[in-house]
Every structure is written in C-alpha cells, then in structure tokens.
C-alpha cells in the first residue's frame, strides 16, 4: 500500500467519529459560547426569544454583559466556590479510599480485602436518584444515624440538606469507577518488582510511594480526572441531598434555565463549568499522551 493510500484509509476510518463529535459536541459548544456572548441569531434565535433579559451582542465579537451579570450575582461566586470545594474534597476522599482498598487487596489480600473491593463497586448498580434519596433519609433528623446515636444517649448529626451530604453522595457515586481503576492498576504491578523492593529493604510506605504508585500512575490519574469532572458537573446528588443555598453549579444551571427563565445566564455558567472541566481534562490527555509515547505508539 502506498503512503498516500494509507493516509487516505486512515482519514476515512477516523472521519465518522470526528464528524459525530463535531455535530453533537463541537457545534453545540460553539453555539453556547456564542450565545453567552450575546449572539442571538441563527440557531440561537429560539432560545433567545424564550429567555428573559437576554443580552444582545454590541460588537462583532459580542458583549460581555451576560458574563458581567452572572459574575455580579453574589449567588454565582458563592456557588462557584462551593462547587470547586466539593469537587476537591470529594476527589481527594475518593482517590484516597480507592487507593486504600486497592493497596490492601494487592499487598495483603485475603477475604476481607476482596469483600471491601467488592463492596466499593456496589454503588455502580444502584441508580443515582435512589442512592441520593437513601442518603437524604439516612442522615435526616429522624434517620438511621441519629436514631442509632439516640439509643446510646448521643445527639447525632443531621447531614441531610447540607454540603456534607453532597460530598458523601459524590463519594458514593464516584467510588466504584475509581476503585476499579486503582485496583486494576495496582494488580498490574509485577510481583518481581515488589519483592525486589522488599529485598532491597524498602519499607511498605516507600514501596507504595516509590514503586507501586509510579507504576500505576496512568490509571490513578484517569480515576482522579474522571472523578473530578463527574463531581464538577453533577446534578442529581446535590439536588436531592444538598441545601437550597449554597448550591452547586449543576443545580444552578438547571434552575436558571428552567425556573428563572434565564437561559443566557445558565449558558454562561455552563461555559464556566466547561472551562474548569477542560482544565482537568488537559491533565488526563497529557498523561494518556505520555503513556502512549512510552509505549512507542506516538
């Protein structure tokens, strides 16, 4: 096969996914960014007609008025801080827990370790709506936690409708995937490496930090980025378990779009979430690229 034909075949094979992505992801992103800048013509005409207080472009590139509206709203700044905070805390807890479960399984093994790893995957099979509702009732003022505490004469915490419940729910929904990634990554570390490190006198801590984690870096980074992106844009968990205020941006976007009839402001928030998620995504792409390079595929 000539080089030109090979290139042509490659292009033909890559074209369908590229077109699909352009139509279903690329164009909506461009439209949304345009709408947030006040471009209300063309495919944005209907949504602009529906919304109230829609800002219209004043120059060729648009207007920042809608962005100014959103950033001048104290609710948005407050909720942005909460969203980022919930994302960071949830991601740290998820990654630490999944690594703990995976290391326990790899280094100690046994029935208990297998049971933990199995339990951590259970949330995968429970719909998020059901789980959110269960979490809300479990930690409510008349829920299981406070009931159990009352039996021994203690005043248990009420976490329903609080940011704490949002973190608990986020950890619950993200743990299965992170655990699967972390355990498969650590299982792939060869026994020979672990034994060699031990023979050389490495403590368990330095074995984990200097041998096992570097070898499992790619799956762990994937688990981290996917967890962060998932928590950043979630709706169901905070809607059911969280407080009315402060809220997270996923809930705000829905409220501004539906209940307050301000689609332009909700699109501005969506672009903000998109930019934050892209930043996290860049870390993932970088890692995947480096790993492909090491494997000699790029």
């Amino acid at each position, binding site marked *: 096969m000539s080089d030109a034909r090979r290139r042509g075949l490659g292009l033909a094979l890559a074209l369908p996914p590229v077109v699909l992505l352009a139509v279903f992801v690329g164009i909506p992103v461009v439209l949304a960014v345009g709408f947030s800048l006040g471009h209300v013509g063309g495919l944005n005409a*209907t949504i602009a*007609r*529906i919304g*109230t*207080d829609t800002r219209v472009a004043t120059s060729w590139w648009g207007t920042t008025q809608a962005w100014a509206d959103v950033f001048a*709203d*104290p*609710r948005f700044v407050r909720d942005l801080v909460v969203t980022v905070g919930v994302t960071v805390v949830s991601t740290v807890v998820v990654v630490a827990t999944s690594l703990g479960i995976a290391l326990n399984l790899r280094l100690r093994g046994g029935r208990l370790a297998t049971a933990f790893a199995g339990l951590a995957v259970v949330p995968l099979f429970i719909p998020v709506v059901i789980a959110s509702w269960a979490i809300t009732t479990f930690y*409510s*003022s*008349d829920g299981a936690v406070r009931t159990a505490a009352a039996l021994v004469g203690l005043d248990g915490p*009420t976490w*329903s*409708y609080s940011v704490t419940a949002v973190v608990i729910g986020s950890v619950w929904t993200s743990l299965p995937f992170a655990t699967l990634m972390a355990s498969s990554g650590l299982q792939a570390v060869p026994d020979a490496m672990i034994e060699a490190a031990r023979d050389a006198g490495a403590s368990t801590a330095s074995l984990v930090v200097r041998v096992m984690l570097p070898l499992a870096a790619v799956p762990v980074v994937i688990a981290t980025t996917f967890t962060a992106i998932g928590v950043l844009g979630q709706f169901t968990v905070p*809607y*059911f378990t969280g*407080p*009315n*205020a*402060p809220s997270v941006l996923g809930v705000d976007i829905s*409220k*501004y779009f*539906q*209940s*307050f*009839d*301000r689609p332009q402001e909700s699109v501005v928030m969506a672009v903000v979430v998109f930019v934050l998620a892209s930043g996290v995504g860049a870390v993932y792409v970088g890692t995947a690229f480096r790993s492909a390079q090491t494997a000699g595929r790029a």
Partner: protein
Amino acid sequence: MTRRRPLAALAAAAATAVLLAGCAPTPAASVGAASRAVTDAQGTVTVFISGDTNVQTLWEKALIPAFEAANPGASVTTTLDLHGEHDAQSLAKLSSATAAGDDPGYDLVDSGFVRAAGAADLLAPVDASTIPNLATVPDSTVAAGDGYGIPYRASSVLLAYDSTTVSSPPRTLDDLLAWITDHPGQFAYNPPSTGGSGGAFVTTVLDEHLTDEQRTTFETTRDASQESAWEPGFAELARLDSSVYQHGVYPNGNQQVLDLLGTGAISMAPVWSDQVISAQDAGTLPATIHYAQISDPSFTGSASYLGIPKTAAHADTAEALADYVLSAEGQALIAETIAGYPVVSADSVPDAQRPEFAEADPATLRPGYSSETASDMSDLWDQEVPGQ
C-alpha cells in the same frame, strides 16, 4: 377528614345528575343551563399537561379513559411537563408556533400559563356556543378566563397543621408569621420554583406589602421595574429563614413538604387543598393533620383554566373534551380523583354540601402571579431568602 364524605356524596349526586339529565331539568337549570352529557365526539386530540402528578393522574387515569369510553370515535394522547417547571418556555414556544402559523403539537392546554396565553392572543376564543356546558359555570368564573380560558376545576392553598401538636392554629397571616418565629423548625415550605404551595406562601407574604394596582400588574403581566416593591416581603421571608425546618431547609416540591408533615418532622405547612385531601384518602397522611384557610390575606388559589391554541389542528375534538370535563360526569371524576373543587355553579352542588365548598368558591379565590412574574419571584426568592 371532614371532607371525605361530602365529596363522595357530591360525586354520587353528580352521577345522579347525569342519569337525570336526559329526563328532567336539574337544579343547574337555575343558572340558565342544564349539564349536558358528551357522547358524540370524533377524532384525535392531544392534551398538554403542566402540573403535579395528581393532575397527570386526573387526566391519564380518569378523564381520558372515561371520555374515550363515552366517545368511541375519539382518542386522546397527552404531553406532560411535570410541576410546570418549563411554563415560561412552553408559553414562548406556543407564541413562536402561533407566530409561524404552525400547529403547536397539542390541542388543549392545562397549565398556569393559560391566562397569559389568552392575554397574548395565542388562544382560540371559547363560549357556550361551542362548549355548551360552560353555561353551567358561574359567570364571574367564566369572565376571569377573559373569553379564552375554560375554567374546569378549582383548588387553593390551605394551611395544614398537626392537630396533636398545634391546639390553636393561626387564623391570619400575621398570626402565622408570629407562630413560625415562636416555633423554630416546625414550619416548612418548598421553594416557589418547585411547586405552587410554597409559591402561594411566598406570594401571600409579598402581597401584604403591595398596593392593589401593583398586585393587578403582577397578576397579568411582567413589569420588572415594579418588582422592587417585593423587598419588604423578601426581608420578612429572610428573617424567617432561621425559624423554618432545620434552620433554612426548603424541600424541593409540594409532595416533599407533605411527606415531612406526614412523618411528624414538622407541624405546619402550606399545602394544596386537593393534594392534602388525596393524601389522607390514600392513607399517606394521618387523619390528625387538619387544614384551614387563613385570612388577611388568604393564600392564593384559583380556578384552573384550559385553553385551546389558536393554531391547534384538532380544535373541534378539544372543544368536545373540554365540554365533557365540564359535564356532571367530568366534574364528579375531578372530585373523586384529586379532590378538586367543582367549578360548576354552587347551585349544582347539593344543599347539604354547599358550606364545605363555600371557602373554595372559585369566584372569590385570590389568583397567583403571571408565569413570567412568577419566574422572577422564584429567582429573587433564591437570591434573597435561603442561606441568609
């Protein structure tokens, strides 16, 4: 529990009226028309439902099967917007479709935006010549539909309380606000964006500080420049924030508030009349929950209106369906299924039951704000009340 038997009796009386309609003049004759059974409708019709699950049940489990059984030539489908969350957008889409002369995709609308749609000239005019049973509805109720809305049931928001913990419930809004402050954590209402019962509470508190002209403006249109008049009301609600359930938790939805009342987590809440009665009938709310209307001002409530879009493809069948809903049979189904108040003239309700429905006279209920103004109210509430 006081309302169960009268409703059953009303349903029975209405059913009897159906039987009598063919052979003798009924009491409804005193308003100038007798209820008429609808049995000859033909064709298909799509109903757009914007409301809570009880309204969905009313249409899909009661009215539509009964209509189709009585009219073998007709078939009905539905389109649902649960909780009416997209009302403002639905109205805008209807206005786009009407402007383009296109069929909006449905022929009969059951939504809070019917009045606004009528005012925007998006609905076909209706009267007793095309919908004969409209003649059995009191004139003032029909007039409130501005010639476009077909009143078909009524409900209002009431104050429900747990009679085991509250011996003397507040009778006025001022008493209620004082009660909430005196009993921290015992009162809850849902955010206005998630349901009408919380919306009615917020609207009523805001209304206390409005003039009559401002009230009329908010009811019929959107005027953002006048919305600063809400400030004192929102300040009042922000002050109450620390006194409501869990120091400022507003459950997302009418039903969630009822659930809290049912489990005893709270002692008092604004609730929809039809939902509280249905919940007690279904046994999900104990009989110890009592309810009453407050005064100065009362909570909002109104007749619910149906509308037929100007460009609807099946307007004839839609008229027949609306006529059926207003027939004695349709009104009985509404009372049975969702404990809705009848909208037909009080003369059509048996004497013994008339006092039960006196406070629900759709002609005297205070309506809520227009859907666009309500969107702004939800937005400002979210900004100024929770977490303050």
